[in-house]
């Protein structure tokens, strides 16, 4: 490659750089009132859209600042484009698994502690949004994974919701009918991970500096779930012709599944007649464990109205707003003090709240996505009976070491 071809792209890039740095955000914090703020969000349901719009209308009414909301499709692409252009929205949703990348890129202002009573948020959620010692953004709400089951089927089979792995094996077996498994699980780390945690294992150590796939605990967990599949008492949602666990349950293609809070809204819309209930996941050899997923309100480092943006996030994370937000939308408030109030109108969802006490954060480091992908690949192979636990453990261990070193 000659140097000649190099000049044009370099010049072009230089041009863009100039432009980008010229528009790059400078701190301009004094202006707290009268700022125009832009917010990006993604939509997970019509109920959430309505709640968010109502919250913003209420905030705008206070007259301090004006917020303009864009609820966008292809959210990651939209947000990334705005960030790459140096003009991100002032406030935006951040998925927990995206946090390390955003933090490493310097896209976020660490404002986690600048909201009212920051210690009220669940510690595990705060950890999800902490990267290299800085707590970036307060969690909006959260979900946990638990066991969802068909009430009538369990009653008819005389099965109680299982409390241990042994009971889960027995229950799944008893609920299995010819050509239909008792338990349906999506073959991915964000479901199977609960078993790893219940066995006392995890893909990495707690500060994500070492891979710990190649351990007895992880092997035990993977072997346990793989055996459930091999015996026919568990199967993937796809293997029974459905897209996810909720659909499998709703269509009677399984009697139990492992999903999170989102299942409530989906069942109401898609399977309004199904009687289901939520139980805590069975405890493994090392006790109870689950995974938590959360989204936070990020404030852009490049924002020109940081003080106003923080004021707005404070408003959104206030107790009243959190309760309003989670009323019709079955995710849980991220403030511990609100859990009983939230449960008052939804006592049947207590298991999800209980999960907060023993949930693992499913967040790693920047660049870890291919490792999770590789693990998912292995999990799919285990579920299909195409691969052995040893192969999966070693492949993921190796993939992780590539990234971590």
């Amino acid at each position: 490659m000659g140097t000649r071809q190099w000049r044009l792209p370099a010049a072009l890039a230089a041009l863009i750089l100039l432009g980008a740095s010229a528009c790059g955000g400078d701190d301009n914090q004094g202006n707290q009132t009268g700022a125009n703020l832009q917010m990006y969000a993604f939509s997970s349901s019509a109920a959430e859209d309505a709640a968010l719009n109502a919250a913003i209308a209420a905030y705008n009414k206070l007259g301090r600042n004006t917020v303009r909301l864009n609820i966008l499709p292809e959210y990651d692409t939209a947000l990334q484009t705005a960030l790459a252009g140096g003009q991100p929205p002032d406030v935006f949703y951040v998925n927990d698994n995206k946090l390390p990348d955003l933090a490493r890129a310097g896209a976020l202002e660490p404002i986690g502690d600048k909201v009212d009573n920051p210690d009220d948020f669940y510690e595990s959620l705060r950890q999800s949004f902490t990267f290299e010692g800085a707590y970036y953004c307060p969690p909006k709400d959260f979900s946990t994974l638990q066991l969802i089951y068909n009430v009538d089927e369990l009653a008819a089979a005389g099965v109680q919701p299982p409390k241990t792995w042994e009971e889960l094996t027995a229950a799944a077996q008893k609920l299995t009918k010819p050509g239909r498994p008792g338990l349906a699980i999506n073959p991915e780390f964000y479901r199977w991970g609960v078993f790893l945690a219940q066995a006392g294992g995890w893909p990495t150590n707690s500060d994500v500096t070492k891979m710990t796939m190649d351990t007895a605990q992880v092997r035990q967990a993977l072997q346990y779930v793989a055996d459930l599949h091999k015996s026919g008492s568990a199967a993937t949602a796809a293997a029974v012709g459905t897209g996810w666990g909720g659909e499998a349950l709703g269509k009677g293609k399984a009697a139990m599944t492992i999903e999170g809070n989102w299942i409530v809204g989906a069942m109401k819309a898609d399977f309004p007649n199904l009687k289901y209930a939520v139980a805590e996941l069975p405890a493994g050899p090392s006790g109870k464990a689950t995974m938590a997923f959360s989204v936070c309100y990020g404030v852009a480092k490049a924002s020109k109205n940081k003080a106003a943006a923080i004021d707005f996030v404070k408003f959104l994370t206030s107790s009243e707003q959190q309760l309003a937000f989670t009323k019709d939308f079955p995710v849980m408030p991220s403030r511990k003090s609100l859990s009983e109030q939230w449960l008052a109108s939804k006592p049947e969802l207590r298991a999800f709240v209980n999960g907060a006490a023993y949930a693992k954060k499913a967040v790693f480091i920047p660049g870890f996505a291919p490792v999770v992908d590789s693990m998912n690949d292995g999990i799919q192979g285990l579920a299909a009976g195409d691969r052995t636990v040893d192969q999966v453990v070693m492949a993921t261990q190796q993939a992780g070491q590539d990234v971590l070193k």
Partner: protein
Amino acid sequence: MALFRKRSRIHGHQSLAGWLFVLPALAGLGVFLLAPILMAFWVSFREWSALAPLDTSTPIGVKNYHDLLIRSGIVQTDFARSLRNNLYYVLGVVPAQTALAFFLAVVVNSKLLKGKAFFRTAFYFPSVTSSIAVAFIFVFLFSPSGVVNVLLSALLPGVVETVWLNEADGLIHLALGWVGVDSAPGWMGGKVMGLSLWDWLSGPSVAMSTVMILAIWTTTGTFMLMFLAGLQNIPEELDEAALIDGATGRQRFFKVTLPLMRPTLFLVLTLGIIGTWQVFDQIYAMTAGGPQKTTLTPSYLIYREGFENSAMGRAAAIAFILFVVILLFTGLQRLALRRNG
């Protein structure tokens, strides 16, 4: 002499006019495509999260290319898998969509056909139907108790309960399995780009084959339209002349129609190869690369690395390796077509 001068004047005019005619188009392509392409090329030699402006990126030389092609590791194996999957996809889809589109174009162009407008519209419709709707419907058609299995169960002995989109076994591996070859013979243990020969020769997975059927079905309408436009240009006299000379239908097709359709065939094959090597939408909507990475394609990998894994430099490098692969394939196709002409 005079003749010569005149011709050269025309040539001068043509030269000027030639450039003037392409200039506006070139300007547009230059600004809105070439500039972004050059920028992406530059990015492929850098590490950039794309979560902050370009000035936060750092130069890393050819590392992105090295990781993809040479250094063994997950990056290389994922890329090798995506190339393998896409290669089978191209080999399956391009001939099928071209043949089907040509066949349908000839049929709806026929003078004898009644209800031409209806059939043309019907065959074109998958091209306008939204990809969400199409993916949605295919998932149901190919579900375990879906229409496809019901039909197959009726035609074949036994009950067919294949979970089409969840089946990671390769077709060639399956075929070898039927004749008793279940695992790699010793000489196939050698690895190319981190993937054993046995894995390279798996054939498309059942899931990928399902996606291929969908792709053929959705793209045929567009290519039919191009063939149709080409067929319109064939002067009827030529056909008539051939008919008078006593040519049979088949002879007329191969001796008259096909040679005249060469430019359109080149168009359709080239666009087909480019489009299939860049397949993204169907994968994104239906399988997200699974099961067991057997529908992972380079374009999907670009999306995953660039937008989910914040490794835009690596994504760009994948794009330019794919660019070279596409040029190679279109070049080969051009040679083959010229040879037959």
